[in-house]
């Protein structure tokens, strides 16, 4: 059902965990649907310096979370905002069609974390 790349990320997820005092946190999904994902970011000089995740969900949910941390690390915030759901799925060699909608939440999680960071920064500047 899953590609070898998905299984590899499921077996050995990259950057799993939380970042204490993260600059931005994005939580998306809903345990009711079977997928819940939190993305934590540290931002330095407009770049994603560190990124971690925690995920409740199926194999695809865990693998996409792991993949987004690899795709986003070191990118500028503008570049990171451009990473799409499709990019995540492509980087994993594709996902089963039924998983494209429900479990492919990682890009949304990343974008939510960046927005959280920007909102906090704006609040500080006021």
């Amino acid at each position, binding site marked *: 059902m899953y590609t070898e790349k998905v299984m590899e990320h499921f077996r050995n997820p990259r950057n799993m965990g939380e970042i204490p005092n993260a600059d931005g946190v994005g939580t998306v999904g809903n345990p009711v649907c079977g997928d819940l994902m939190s993305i934590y970011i540290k931002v330095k000089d407009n770049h994603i310096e560190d990124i971690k995740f925690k995920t*409740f969900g199926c194999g695809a949910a865990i693998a996409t979370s792991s993949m987004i941390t690899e795709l986003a690390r070191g990118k500028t915030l503008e570049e990171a905002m451009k990473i799409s759901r499709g990019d995540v799925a492509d980087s994993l060699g594709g996902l089963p069609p039924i998983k494209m909608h429900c479990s492919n939440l990682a890009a949304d999680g990343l974008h939510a974390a960046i927005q959280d960071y920007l909102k906090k920064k704006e609040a500080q500047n006021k």
Partner: protein
Amino acid sequence: MDYTAGMPVDNRVVEVMLPYFSQQYGNPSSLHSSGSEVRKAMEEARTKIAALIGAKKNEEVFFTSGGTESNNLAIKGVAYRNKDRGNHIVTTTIEHMSVMNTCKALTKEGFNVAYVPVDKYGVVNVQSLEKAITDKTILVSVMYANGEIGTIEPIKEIGEIVHRKGALLHVDAVAAAGQISINVENEYIDLMSISSNDMYGPRGVGALFVKTGTRIQPIIHGGGQERGLRSGTENIPAIVGMGKAAEIAKAEMKTEGERLSRLRDKLTKGLLESIPSSFLNGHPTQRLPNNANIRFSYIEGESLILSLDMLGIACSSGSACTSKTLEPSHVLLAIGLKHEEAHGSLLFTLGKQNTEEDADYVVNALPDIVKRLRAISPLTPKELLT
């Protein structure tokens, strides 16, 4: 440990089937001797199935293409034939989809369906069932045992009520037949569905028990086979195979049932003791010998299944993410689990080839898998992570 999803056909069953493909290929409806030999084999199979379920007469057993067709025939056949008497059907919230969706289809044809709730163990609430039966009720359909959570229903008690209220009782015994003792006469059953492939027989064949005198009409019309109730040339190799499977199931029920119950209890106890925040789904004692359904808080079933599969362990889940729909199992929701609890359930269905070593292997492997997935999950409370 996923026998419910697919059982191997018993070698002894395969053996008796083989001659009926290319050597004894006659049609039981033919008058010549090749036809009559095949007819004899078919009637022997019917006798064996009648014996398994305690039917008084062979002719109360009708062959179908499987459990789904048997459930369709029982419910639609009784509903259409008795609509002059009423348009109300009573069933439960934990039935198989072939009962659920048949009832749902009938609501589009003017029938009304009441769904009786179950308790937290999955046992049908008998008082609610009694109250749900009205003077318009023609049929009550309750499963003998639930294949997903293993709970066995109080069919005899339900049968008494249904008959007292003047309705007919249909029982879906697909998960139970061959595993536990059933007697259609003593338990007031009017119609009962069984399937061959849930007792180590071939796929594509099943049976419907219809008590003599029950008002029912066919849903498949044609050449009038099965005394007009189910037309279509009989699938003789499969019917002979199902007969053999029923014979073996009856002969081995006691010893195999006791063996599987021990295995089930060992697996259940081992997992509940070694994994914190784990719970048994279904009834603790009134359950099928082969069924262990266990839920683990804070994690999701598909990731458990993938992890177990890497270690060569096959089982199922109540999670949406392993099925074609996005909803978790309606059975797990009916026993009162929250969506996220239903998602974290694993179903082990044991069978002939499972051993004590298999149970030990799972009990040894699963704690670390659960621990790893809980470490990844944002829902896990901190105290469980140490």
